């Protein structure tokens, strides 16, 4: 399975949940296959999906899922100690680990070589770290949501991309509908 197939398999679990999605192809794939007002698409700023998601989770009570990538986590490695030391049990970080920088042409990442993101997350102090195979992505995410414990999921899959259109929605519209849903749900 490649990333787009993993995201497709997650759609029933993501439905109705607040999702912060990584820049580039992951956001474009999620937007094409399962757009919903509770999705926040990152149009820029590689690496910050986990930071934005943690911020949302710490600020209010609804569950938040950050969809991240191995390359983006490598870009913002400092996020893992921050997550570990600021526990938000309404937060799940789902890292699609295809061992490559997918949006830029599948150049290999170190996570596809010697570096284990699950081991790094554990070493940083994250308490619930699960590594799963692509086929188990949906049930692993559902279990993490059901556990009511902050969880880091490292989902191993194959590299490869499908053709997807870019997101043309205005960033303020993306932000406004996300905030509107969140405010209504917390009211």
């Amino acid at each position, binding site marked *: 399975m490649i990333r787009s197939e993993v995201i497709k398999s997650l759609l029933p679990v993501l439905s109705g949940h607040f999702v912060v999605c990584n820049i580039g192809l992951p956001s474009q794939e999620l937007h094409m296959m399962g757009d919903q007002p509770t999705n926040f698409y990152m149009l820029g700023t590689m690496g910050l999906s986990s930071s934005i998601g*943690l911020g949302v989770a710490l600020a209010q009570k609804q569950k938040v899922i950050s969809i991240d990538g191995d390359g983006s986590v490598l870009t913002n490695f400092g996020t893992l100690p921050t997550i570990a030391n600021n526990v938000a049990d309404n937060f799940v970080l789902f890292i699609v680990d295809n061992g490559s920088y997918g949006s830029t042409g599948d150049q290999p990442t170190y996570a596809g070589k010697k570096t284990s993101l699950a081991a790094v997350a554990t070493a940083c102090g994250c308490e619930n770290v699960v590594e799963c195979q692509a086929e188990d992505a949906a049930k692993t995410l559902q279990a993490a949501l059901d556990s009511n414990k902050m969880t880091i999921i490292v989902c191993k899959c194959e590299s490869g991309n499908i053709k997807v259109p870019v997101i043309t929605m205005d960033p303020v519209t993306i932000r406004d509908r996300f905030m509107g849903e969140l405010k209504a749900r917390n009211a």
Partner: protein
Amino acid sequence: MSISKKLVDDMANNEISFVTTVPCKQLGGVIEEVEKHPDIYHIPSNKEDEGMGLCAGAFMGGKRSAIIMQNTALGVTVNTLATLIQYYRMPLPMLISYRGELGEPVACQVEMAVHTKAILAQLNIPTYHFHDAADAEEFDKILKYTFMCNKPVAILTDASFWKGY
């Protein structure tokens, strides 16, 4: 009241309840007050762009947020300011220690000081420079202005300002 406490009280009075910090010796007192304040969640970050991501998230989650950082890190935040904070129109007060100004003992700090205002100007970020002790009286208004216009706003605080107290 210490100037550090005044600045943090101004933040709290403007309903800022989520503050991320990256340490600076000059801002040590402010960071202590942030940590102590009962109405503020203090979340130290490991890098300034990470901190801005946290602030963006907290803002979308319904909390007013702010970042406390050193000017030497401004360069690494340019992309985040342009493509996250400004692109999505989010308010972000940035309380910044302005190292490399008069009284600076470390020569290398000057190398980023000479670029600080130029970078902020290039990004069209409203910028205030606290040099004299009395300049801090504007802080409350600057915070109100930030949340009125939904922009990142920089408050540079130099060594003369901190020595004035």
